[in-house]
């Protein structure tokens, strides 16, 4: 089954399986283009990838090896009037300043996890380890072996956490359980009303993924970690706010959603947000929450921009949960894979570990006619989509993101409900956002949390983020009185942000996709994918909904089942024991599927034709509501619930002020 050859003719050839490339692939395939989707790597999603722990170690190792570009002469593949443009064949990873620290214990030995004194003693020795040069992996490095020694002289700490003698995870355990981790290279969240969520729903790609709500927005202030009140109920229950502050916050947030807001801040539009908030006489408490956690910006951001961010935040509240954010189960790396599946389901051909070595360009039209793949095969195409970094680039990246990935032994703000996904905003010169993932997000093992830190790079990732890590967590370098979760393993690296490429020389039918940007959401990537799609197929619909599983019919087949009546329970009725269950679900007229609704009372919206509503399983444990107006409407109508909801939002907030 191995040495099959790729077909030699496609409409669209796409190299790279990052989010943008994958969305373009799905969109093209969905409207009937023959798509070949390649990735030179052995895994999906490129810079957007998610790895098991062991997979991440291999990735780290790869980064330190610079694979040289192979030289090939493909000129024999050329016909008259054609030119070749070579692509880089080595993997230009562009990740820099990679540093790994391992603080797991080396042996299967139980140690009280608190060892303040031992930690302090270690500090001096640790200095050397911190300077691990980029690219050097230090998995079994000094820190763990030293802590092993110090454990002997460990005196029980007085400020012990409730869980007293917790076993510290060993490195061997980490490796053994490694496959249960899903560690993203990029840390982002999905805004509940952002472009990515809308696209997932519109295209029905949402069927392939499950999500968790981000339950808490936390912030770090005066060394304390506090929960930011953002929903009405949060504001009410918040112990951090006085009654007066609660009212003021409610009034302010309500006014932000008002259409007349621009009049309110007119004079401040270009002035710092902080000045505007001071002018509004909001307390320091509130200023902090509003600037850092709600607008997620800095005090000197222009007021107009900060208020736009605030508005976006508020509009996203309450769609799925009490914060604006969602996180996909198994990590962000799932999302590109979901779009790839959509592409494959509509006939797209997938081949990993396969690359494009050169473009064949027609001298007259200067269009790309074909590509030469890594086996030397010539594959013709009408359009070519490339991930960034395919051309030998000379200019170094101008903007980078600093990243840290930690495996810790607990939450920075433990609660009774231990299984929470949180975002923590940490004010700093370059504001740091931290996403803390719990085991039920399927990204880490029980007893651990997976923590992602991200900021715009000022220096190396270690320089930018290790002070924050030491402040928020217990490490051999940290020194704070508060009990904090312990860092078991951590990784720092810098990744360049997607840059406008200097693609002036490119053939007109070649597009380059940028890598992930440093923002929290995905709007940039989705806008880019849509732009590339429109360039390839002007006027075609971008990702129309895929048919519901129930509507798939194999060629010309009419099921002999009787049509199910709406309001009935066709599934239940179709399955008499001992009888051949009817394939009622394949009937294309209507398919009220009560199966997925836990309450079993509300039939789901049925998707009777391709232009209609989502018919995927509904939100588990919650009611699915099918508004009558939804039936027979085009999916664009999804904007109406949006506006509806955002209209209810201010009311909801107003209600609060009266309470």
């Amino acid at each position, binding site marked *: 089954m191995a040495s099959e050859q790729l077909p030699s003719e496609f409409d669209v050839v796409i190299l790279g399986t990052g989010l943008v490339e994958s969305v373009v692939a799905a969109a093209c395939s969905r409207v009937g283009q023959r798509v070949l989707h390649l990735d030179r790597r052995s895994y999906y999603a490129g810079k957007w990838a998610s790895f098991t722990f062991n997979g991440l170690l291999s990735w780290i190792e790869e980064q330190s090896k610079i694979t040289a570009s192979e030289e090939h002469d493909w000129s024999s593949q050329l016909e008259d009037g054609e030119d070749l443009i070579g692509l880089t064949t080595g993997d230009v990873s562009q990740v820099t300043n990679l540093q790994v620290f391992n603080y797991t214990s080396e042996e299967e030995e139980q140690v009280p996890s608190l060892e303040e004194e031992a930690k302090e003693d270690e500090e001096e020795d640790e200095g050397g380890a911190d300077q691990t040069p980029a690219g050097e992996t230090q998995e079994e490095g000094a820190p763990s072996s030293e802590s092993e020694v110090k454990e002997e002289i460990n005196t029980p700490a007085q400020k012990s956490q409730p869980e007293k003698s917790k076993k510290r995870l060993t490195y061997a355990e980490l490796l053994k359980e490694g496959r249960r981790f899903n560690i993203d290279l990029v840390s982002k969240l999905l805004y509940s009303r952002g472009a990515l969520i809308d696209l997932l*729903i519109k295209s029905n790609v949402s*069927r392939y993924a499950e999500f968790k709500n981000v339950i808490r927005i936390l912030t770090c202030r005066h060394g304390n970690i506090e929960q930011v009140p953002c929903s009405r109920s949060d504001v009410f229950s918040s112990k951090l706010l006085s009654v007066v502050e609660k009212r003021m916050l409610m009034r302010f947030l309500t006014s932000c959603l008002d259409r007349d807001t621009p009049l309110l801040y007119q004079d401040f539009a270009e002035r710092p947000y902080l000045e505007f908030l001071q002018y509004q006489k909001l307390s320091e408490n509130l200023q902090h929450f509003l600037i850092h956690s709600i607008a997620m910006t800095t005090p000197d951001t222009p007021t107009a921009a900060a208020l736009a961010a605030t508005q976006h935040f508020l509009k996203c509240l309450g769609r799925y949960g009490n914060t604006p954010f969602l996180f996909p189960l198994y990590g962000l790396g799932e999302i590109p894979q979901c779009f790839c599946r959509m592409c494959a389901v509509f006939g797209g051909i997938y081949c990993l570990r396969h690359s494009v070595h050169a473009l064949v360009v027609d001298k007259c039209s200067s269009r790309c006619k074909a590509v030469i793949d890594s086996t030397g095969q010539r594959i013709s195409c009408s359009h070519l989509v490339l991930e960034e970094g395919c051309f030998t680039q000379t200019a170094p990246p101008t903007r980078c993101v600093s990243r840290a990935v930690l495996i810790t032994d607990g939450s920075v703000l433990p609660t009774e409900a231990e299984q929470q996904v949180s975002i923590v905003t940490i004010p700093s010169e370059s504001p740091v956002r931290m996403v803390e993932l719990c085991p039920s997000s399927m990204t880490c093992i029980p007893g651990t949390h997976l923590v992602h830190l991200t900021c715009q790079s000022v220096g190396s990732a270690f320089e930018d983020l290790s002070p924050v890590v030491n402040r928020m967590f217990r490490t051999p370098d940290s020194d704070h009185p508060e009990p904090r979760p312990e860092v078991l393993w951590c990784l720092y690296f810098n990744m360049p942000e997607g840059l406008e490429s200097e693609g002036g020389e490119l053939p007109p039918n070649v597009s380059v996709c940028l890598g992930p940007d440093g923002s929290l959401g995905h709007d940039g990537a989705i806008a880019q994918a849509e732009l590339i799609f429109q360039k390839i197929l002007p006027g075609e619909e971008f990702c129309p909904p895929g048919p519901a599983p129930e509507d798939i019919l194999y060629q010309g087949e009419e099921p002999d089942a009787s049509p199910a009546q709406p309001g009935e329970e066709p599934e239940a009725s179709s399955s008499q024991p001992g009888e051949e269950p009817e394939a009622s679900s394949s009937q294309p007229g209507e398919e009220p599927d009560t199966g997925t609704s836990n309450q079993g009372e509300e039939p789901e919206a049925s998707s009777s034709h391709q232009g209609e509503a989502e018919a995927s399983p509904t939100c588990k444990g919650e009611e699915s509501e099918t508004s009558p107006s939804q039936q027979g409407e085009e999916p664009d109508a999804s904007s109406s619930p949006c506006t509806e909801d955002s209209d209810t939002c201010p009311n909801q907030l107003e209600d609060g002020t009266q309470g």
Partner: protein
Amino acid sequence: NMAIRELKVCLLGDTGVGKSSIVCRFVQDHFDHNISPTIGASFLTKTVPFGQELHKYLIWDTAGQERFHSLAPMYYRGSAAAVVVYDITKLDSFQTLKKWVKELKEHGPEDIVVAIAGNKNDLGDIREVPMKEAKEFAESIAAIFIETSARNAVNVEELFQKISKQIPPLQNPDVESNESFKLTQQPPPSTRRCC
């Protein structure tokens, strides 16, 4: 009113062994020689009764991504069972079966129910894979074993009945309070507490 359990089942096996035909037979009781390779099918569903429950199978086909060994990890996520298919008339397809099983152990959920299906058993006269050998292999990995014929509707229902039997009983659904969910067009009404 019987409880409905959604069970994701993923199919594995070489191109051309009849994975889609098995699903097509199971879901629509239909067989087509020139079945188009699964265009547009994200997954197919069929609900069957089992004891006091209804098992709603969401059956995922490879969508051709197996052809160049490029199945994505997301394909296996949350699968209750996997059906690994080979063609009894093609020894190659049985030999690569072990590779699929290995891949499943690497990427699939730990508690996944594995079923091995030797398809095309209507073509016994050109059989290349002895049933005994296949059965022994299945036993060695504690997998369900069955020979099927999607064409003649032999043992396809039985395959899924055997899977149903191996599915562990439903646990208390209230255990997990903050579950994950799928996105829908119409968002669920947000749970607001009244004060």
